[in-house]
Structures are given as C-alpha cells and as structure tokens.
C-alpha cells in the first residue's frame, strides 16, 4: 500500500537529509584538515624547514624533501607544458577535425585516466633502468611529465577549442597572421583553461608518491644535481607515517603538504580570476 505523504512533509525530510549530507561533507573536510594541521603545525619550526632529515627522518628537518618536491615539479612542468600546450595548438589550429584527431583525443583522455602507478612502473623500467638515469630528479621529473602530459593536452585543447570562432575571424579580418592570432588572441583567451590544466598537473606532481619512490628514489640527502635522487614531501610523509618512524614529523610534513596545496589552489584561483577580470 503506497502511503501518500504530504508533499510539504517530503520536502522537509528531503531538506533535512540534504543539509545533513552537506554538513557531513564539511565535517569530514574540517576533521581531516584540522587533525593534520593541529598536530603538525606545532612541530614546524624554522629549523625543521631548513635542516635535512637524519636518523631515517626521526630527527632533523625536511629541507631536502622541500627542495626535492620543487625540483621534481619544476622538471615535470618545464617538460610537459610546452609539449602539451604545443600539441593542443597543433591539434586545434593546424589540423582538421577527423577520425585521427578523435582517436588522439580519446587516447589522451584514456592516458590521463591511467593510474599513476602504471606510469611509475614505466618510468622505473624506462628511465631508471633502461636509460640508466638511475634514481634521480631527472627520472622522477620525466616520469611525472609523462604522467601529466595527457591532462595538459586535454585541458589546453578544450580551452583553445572553446575560444569563440569569432575571435579568430576578427583577428584574421584585421590582417593578423596565424601566429599573431595565436599569441595575441587565442592564448590570452584560453589561458585560464590552460592554466587550470597546468595547476592540476602541479597538484598531481606534489601529491604523487608511488611513482616518485620508484623513479626518484628515497634518499634523505639534499639533492645536488638533476642526477641526484630526491625525496618529495609526499614520499617523506608516506615513509614516516607507514613505518611509524616519527609521528610528530609525519604530521608536520602532512601539515606542510596541506598548506602547500592550499597555497597552490588559492594562487591558481587568483591567477584565473585576474585573467578573467582583465579580459572583461
């Protein structure tokens, strides 16, 4: 027997459930963030940020991990961005929409979705062992570059494609060359989208663990060259946490990671907003 409820009652119940769900999500977010930040921030001292870890990470600081994170991310972005954005430009501006481009787009989409661990496996065998680059910032950075390349291609391509055709037509009608159109019209318009892809890539590099351990190693020393092995903050946190070496330092590392992600997100939003505002 179907009970007919007053629609108002149903609405109230639904509202309660929905508000509850939303509050649950917020609660989770705050719990997790505040847990790590509150346990970690007290242990972040200037010393912690500038010393290298010693005694497997139980004592000392995380300066080498900070440098490692920056170095790996830099290599990855420097390699992947020109390749990715350039490919996106080529696909949208210099080729006609065809079966081939559809296949390429689908492949980029799929490759962007492959679990990072598979990239780690590839990077270990190709860069570390086969090319004999060893466990190094180079191996790790190149592996990460390959990992974020599909994402950058995909987001850049979409950003460029969604620039209204009118922009191009106006530029051409004013006598602009293709190159001028691209640099003065397309890139600025598509920049928020392209930047989003790059920021996503940076986020992925900072958070990646398994692929990095296997390609950049897990040495504690401050890296001295592209060929030095290096730890990233995420790797350092993983090792400290899973092996129970030092919970205090683990929390501190996690806190720094979360703050870093926060800064990247805020920076990204500011950047995007500024460009969107400028265009207006």
């Amino acid at each position: 027997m179907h009970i007919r409820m007053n629609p108002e009652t149903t609405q109230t119940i639904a509202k309660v459930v929905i508000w509850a769900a939303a509050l649950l999500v917020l609660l989770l977010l705050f719990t997790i963030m505040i847990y790590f930040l509150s346990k970690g921030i007290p242990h972040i001292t200037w010393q912690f940020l500038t010393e290298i870890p010693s005694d497997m990470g139980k004592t000392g600081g995380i300066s080498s991990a900070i440098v490692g994170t920056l170095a790996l991310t830099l290599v990855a972005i420097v390699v992947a961005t020109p390749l990715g954005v350039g490919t996106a430009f080529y696909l949208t501006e210099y080729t006609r929409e065809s079966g081939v481009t559809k296949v390429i787009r689908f492949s980029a989409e799929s490759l962007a979705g492959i679990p990072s661990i598979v990239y780690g496996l590839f990077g270990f065998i190709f860069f570390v062992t086969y090319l004999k680059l060893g466990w190094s910032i180079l191996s790790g950075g190149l592996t990460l570059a390959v990992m974020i390349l599909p994402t950058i291609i995909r987001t850049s391509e979409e950003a460029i494609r969604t620039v209204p055709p009118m922009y191009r037509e106006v530029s051409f009608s004013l006598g602009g060359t293709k190159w001028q159109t691209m640099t003065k019209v397309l890139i600025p318009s598509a920049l928020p989208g392209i930047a989003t892809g790059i920021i996503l890539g940076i986020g992925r590099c900072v958070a990646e663990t398994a692929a990095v351990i296997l390609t950049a190693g897990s040495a504690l020393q401050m890296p001295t060259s592209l060929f030095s092995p290096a730890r990233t903050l995420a790797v350092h946190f993983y090792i400290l946490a899973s092996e129970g070496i030092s919970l205090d330092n683990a929390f501190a590392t996690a806190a720094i990671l979360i703050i870093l992600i926060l800064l990247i997100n805020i920076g990204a939003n500011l950047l995007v907003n500024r460009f969107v505002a400028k265009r207006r």
Partner: protein
Amino acid sequence: MKLKNFGERLPHGLFFIIALSALTVLALITIFIFVQGVPLIAKVGFFNFIFGMKWAPSQGYYGIFPMIVGTISVTLGAIILGVPVSLCCAIFLAEFAPRHFSDVVRPAIQLLAGIPSVVYGFWGLIFIVPLIREYLGGPGLSILAGSIILAIMILPTVISISEVSLLSLSPLLKEGAFALGATHWQTIRSVLVPAAKSGIVASIILGIGRAVGETMAVIMVLGNAVALPDSILSPVRTLTTNIGIEMGYASGEHQQALFATGIVLLVIIMILNSLAQYSIKRK
C-alpha cells in the same frame, strides 16, 4: 589558408614537431605496456590470467582474479557510500545553499581533491581501521576501510560535476515546474535531477575511474592479502596496489605480469571513459 609565408611555415613546422614528440611519447608508453604485457597474457592464457584464483609469481601462478574482486568490491563500496552523499551535497550547493555559503564551500571541496592520497590513507589507518576492528571485527584492514576512504576521495569529483550539471540547466525548467504548483523538492526530484542525469552519470563514472586508479590511499588500509575476500571485513588487494607492492622487485615474467595488469587497468579506464562520453552525448 596558404602557408607560403616563412613566418607561417616556421610555427607550423615547430608545432608539428612538438605535437609529434608528445604523441610519440604517449604512444611509446602505450606500446611499452602492451609489448611487455601481452606476451605474458598469451603465455598464461587469457582466462587463466583474468580468472585465475592464484597469484604466486615465484611459483609461476599469475591469476589476477582476487585482485579484480578486490578492485570491484572496494570501488563498489566507495560508490554506494559516496554517491548518495555527493548527490545530496551537489543538490545542496545548487539549490539550497545561500550564495555566500556556497562560494566558500565550493573551493573548500576542491581543496579536498588536492590533498595527497597518502594523507587520506594515513588518516584512515589511524581512525577508520581501529574503529572497524573494535566494533565490527576482523583486522580492521579491510574492504570496508578502503571503501570509506575512497568514498571520501571521490566526493569532490562527483559533487563538483553534478553541481555544474544542475546549475547548467535552463531556469525555465524550474520556473515551469513551480508554475505547475510543484514544491521545491518535487521539482528537484522529478524535473531537475532527471534533466541533469547525463552529467550526474558522467560524474559518477569519473568517480569510479578515480577509485579504480587509487593506490597509495588504499595500500595503507587494505591489508594487501592475496586471497579472495570472505566479507567486507576481510583484507584484500586491488589491481593497483598489487602493482604498487610488487613493482620494486619484480623481474622477468613477474614484471610482465604487472604490465599485463596495467593493460587491464587501461582497458577498464577506456571503457569507463567511453561510457562517460556516451552518457554526455545522450543529452
């Protein structure tokens, strides 16, 4: 458009080289994975590989079925736990939240997406695993623990895309429903959500993709036993964690088997992507 001008040919050539390099790299990976993995699948036999119950590389057993069960059960659990909450949250943001509130909540949820998976994994190890062990039984390292962590991790994906789908609906839909006398909730349930269905389904599929690909968060809470799980309280191994644990020392056939697992993952992702695109196109 004729490209006689040198100033036009140079960038064209340059971009061509760039695109070629990038696509070569991507093709290289795909080819590499297949070249390493396919011979092993051929040698062991497709059915023995996919449905083989025993994974013991040192003895020559390469059956990944326990891991397939692991991936499916953990992902299913994540969907069951995560999607209802995500949908409610998306509806909340799109329909009920005051503007200032949602302007704060939305970036906050995006922040959730950026937190490294190892942090989630460790959090799960400290909070979720002991709770499961004390109140539900088993070692705590279990499918349930993995599902809960993954559910939390796919929240941002499902929430943001579903919300966008809801917001992009024509306001006429809502106005029409109200004009007919429907309550807010009736409108949401019978008009808006079905209208946004393709976007919502796409978000769920993307969430599944994320859950399937997750490694570090679950490696810390799953227990990584190679056997078929008995219940959601049993430890289990997924396709990704299997690669993660063994890739450091696998060599020869064992390594090829891990690449073969990578092929399986790639195929799963391709199927999911196709489904998502199909769902969006059906709009």
